[in-house]
């Protein structure tokens, strides 16, 4: 079976006048339908730039300088901008690290979600203007476990908590029934009890909706509890790839070993 996503020799560099930062340097991996894959690594290792590259969202001075990104067999690199824009949100969606910066402060929650839904419906041919109070919005907010969806749908991003904002982000991402959900540190900014809620939610939705999940994190605990397979990144390169069980049982690369050795101290 053809993989959902196939990344081949991806290179994304930041070309500044002073230097070239090889943020992603010859990265290759695949992801099958309905599969969960984690990317782990320390700060600056290139996790976020990899995610942004998949959506072709890298902005200058960053540039994808090489490689191929095959999504459902199509090379994202060669598609026209308009096609990629349609792809984003519908077939592949992303949840970002900091929910506040990713939401538009002047739109209500309902309006933000509607924008997404409207776009997708136009694309799928069922052009119908969606009202912000439409049941689809409420349904999505319910799906992500927001207790008082009618009230929240009318709120602005700054009026709801960080945990709620992250749920809204997930609702927006799910609006187009994506085949692939990319989540970049979706819980790092959250308190631990809320983090647990959001992670459980992501896992549950991934199963229910049979999406593939690409989860980016620096937390091996989150990896162990959420994904089937893991990629370890260091300075823009993949140093190890394994099933989650294998990686913890017998890490091969010295860097992975070092990272894993650091955990028990914190776990006490």
């Amino acid at each position: 079976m053809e993989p959902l996503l196939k990344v081949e020799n991806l290179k994304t560099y930041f070309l500044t006048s002073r230097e070239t930062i090889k943020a992603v340097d010859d990265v290759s991996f695949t992801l099958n339908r309905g599969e969960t894959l984690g990317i782990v690594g320390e700060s600056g290792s290139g996790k976020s730039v990899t995610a942004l590259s998949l959506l072709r969202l890298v902005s200058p001075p960053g540039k994808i300088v090489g490689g191929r990104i095959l999504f459902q067999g199509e090379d994202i690199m060669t598609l026209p901008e308009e096609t990629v824009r349609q792809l984003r949100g519908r077939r592949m969606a992303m949840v970002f690290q900091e929910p506040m910066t990713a939401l538009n402060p002047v739109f209500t929650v309902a309006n933000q979600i509607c924008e997404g839904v409207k776009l997708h419906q136009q694309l799928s041919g069922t052009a119908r203007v969606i009202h912000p109070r439409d049941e689809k919005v409420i349904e999505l907010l319910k799906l992500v476990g927001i207790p008082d969806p009618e009230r929240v749908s009318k709120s602005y991003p700054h009026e709801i908590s960080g945990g709620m904002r992250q749920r809204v982000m997930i609702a927006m991402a799910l609006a187009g029934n994506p085949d692939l959900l990319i989540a970049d540190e979706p819980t790092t900014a959250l308190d631990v009890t809320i983090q647990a809620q959001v992670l459980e939610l992501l896992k549950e939705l991934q199963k229910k909706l049979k999406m593939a999940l690409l989860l980016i994190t620096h937390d091996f605990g989150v990896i162990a509890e959420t994904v089937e397979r893991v990629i370890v990144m260091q300075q823009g390169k993949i140093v190890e790839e394994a099933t989650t069980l294998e990686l913890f049982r017998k890490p091969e690369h010295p860097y992975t070993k070092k990272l894993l050795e650091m955990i028990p101290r914190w776990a006490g």
Partner: protein
Amino acid sequence: MPPFLLEVKNLKKGFPIRKGFFSRIRGTVQALNNVSLNIQRGETLGLVGESGCGKTTLARALLKLIRPDSGEILFQKTDLVPLSSRQMRPFRRHLQMVFQDPYSSLNPRMRVGEIIAEPLLIHRQINRSEKREKVAELLEAVGLSPNFYDQYPHEFSGGQRQRIGIARALAPLPELIIADEPVSALDVSIGTQIIHLLQELQKKRHLSYLFISHDLKLVRMISHRVAVMYLGEIVESGPAEALSHPLHPYTQALVSAIPIPDPALKRKRILLAGEVPSPTELPSGCSFHPRCPYAEERCKTQKPVVKEWQPGRWASCHFVDKIGGLHE
């Protein structure tokens, strides 16, 4: 038992909420609600809780950076609460603080040497001629080169800046250092080094720490005893090891929420309903009741008192003996 270095009794602090500059007070954020705790010499007390529960407010109140509304802060038996800032001066040098953000907590226009020497000059512990030598000693104590004296903070990494912050806190030979999320802004590998430094300094200098963090794993690793805070109250305290079988339902949920780096382990999480309520509208009875999986009618009306359930283990919940933790 030796006397406590620091003993805090029933500390309260509320912040008035106003809408607009001149308008009436609309209510209060009850940031500290009867906090009691104590620290012995050479001991690390870990304070853990989620954001907004009042940790930083407690730190600031202990240093008298904000004035508590009521309660006592006994430092070597003297109550600091009623003291004027002038009367506080001799105590200041004994209580030092290390801050969360190593980027904003150092004055960018001062040289590293000046930053570290400042508290020493304020407390007249050295004269100008001894400055360089003393700073060099401190830089070495925190694992930095004495040559850094003339450099500016922006020339350093997060981990190095946090070391500079620690050197400044150590300078006046304090008894107690309050560290408020000292490694939260750092990568794990750098954070671990800072933790080791703090532990090593504690041994050498017989320091006491109040170590504040939202990270339970970290707090358990570094502390002798741990206090758990929820909505401005300490809901449980006890030896760090005891966190593996907590007494209070909130601590149980906190412990169970931590992702465990072992993919072979299958366990059932305790997922709390909802989110932390706003401290402007504290729930009636037990503040935790709207989220507590064990809450009963009584919890809505009757506030549980803090009780010592086992030697050194305190918790405020009506049903500690039913919930477990005691018998494990």
